[in-house]
């Protein structure tokens, strides 16, 4: 794991509660908002299970700590998207909170119903970008969620030890978290 320069984190007193909201004007229309919200809730909960940080969705976009939207090409932050595949998304380090996904991608919730060869798993990318929002930079561990690349039609949503160690060094451990559950998950992954 690695961190952004200066090792920034959300600096509030524990327990940290971060709010998130979805842009009303910059969303995709072929996946329902309800389904998108379910996917993001699951992605946030994965991180919340390992650190004493909780996430709460709110409606007021401008005041949210984390602001999520889908954007095409140049969208004003100096990091234009590039169309199909290439860059899938980006998010900013603490305590910026901007979370942008490339609207040109074919975002998918599952690959049973979405047959495109260039479909990208929304939950995997959401989980990765939340890592950036929390303060993790890219990892060189291929199995880690924070590894920078993700193939089309692939899924990587379970945090690995590398991800957990990195984020817990920033925020401490969730008192309810045990490494045994993670190891069981990883063993299952390796056998697969």
């Amino acid at each position, binding site marked *: *794991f*690695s*961190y*952004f*320069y*200066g090792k920034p984190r959300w600096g509030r007193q524990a327990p940290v509660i971060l709010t998130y909201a979805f842009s009303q004007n910059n969303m995709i*229309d*072929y*996946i329902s908002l309800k389904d998108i919200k379910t996917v993001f809730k699951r992605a946030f909960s994965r991180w919340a299970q390992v650190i004493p940080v909780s996430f709460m969705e709110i409606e007021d976009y401008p005041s949210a700590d984390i602001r999520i939207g889908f954007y095409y090409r140049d969208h004003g932050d100096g*990091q234009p*998207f*590039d*169309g*199909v*595949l*290439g*860059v*899938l*998304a*980006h*998010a900013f*380090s603490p305590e910026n909170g901007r979370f942008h996904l490339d609207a040109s991608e*074919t975002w*998918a919730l599952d690959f049973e*119903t*979405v*047959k*495109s*060869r*260039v*479909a*990208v798993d929304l939950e995997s*990318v959401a989980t*990765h*970008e939340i890592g*950036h929002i929390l303060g993790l*930079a*890219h*990892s*060189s*561990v*291929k199995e880690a969620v924070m*590894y*920078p*690349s*993700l*193939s*089309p039609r692939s899924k990587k949503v379970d945090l690995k*030890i*590398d991800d957990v*160690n*990195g984020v817990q060094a920033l925020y401490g451990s969730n008192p309810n978290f045990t490494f045994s559950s993670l190891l069981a998950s990883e063993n299952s992954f390796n056998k697969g």
Partner: protein
Amino acid sequence: RIFPESSSTVITVDTHNTTTTTWHGFTRFLDAGKGSQVSGMSELKEYFNRFGYLPIPDENNFTDIFDKQFESAVIAYQTNLGLPVTGKLDSDTISMMVSPRCGVSDTKTHGTTFQATKH
């Protein structure tokens, strides 16, 4: 083209020609190594610049020459992403470069204190 359907959401996209996807053209640099010159390699250098591996040159334009500085950038990229470190644009490296990825830089964000910890 995307054809969303109303209730049973089946999305079909015409992808018979995937060469239009970003970075696919980088495959033509396969096996290039130090000293080689391939037209368009400057675009590859821009990719390395974008993700934090190569600074913009003093003259502001990247050349098409695979020089020593570019070799160092390739080595840093391979090291950072857990690839075999060859310093060449081998198939593993090219495959990784054409893969979709996060837009956050791999190294610029770390300044001079970059440390990647492997476990």
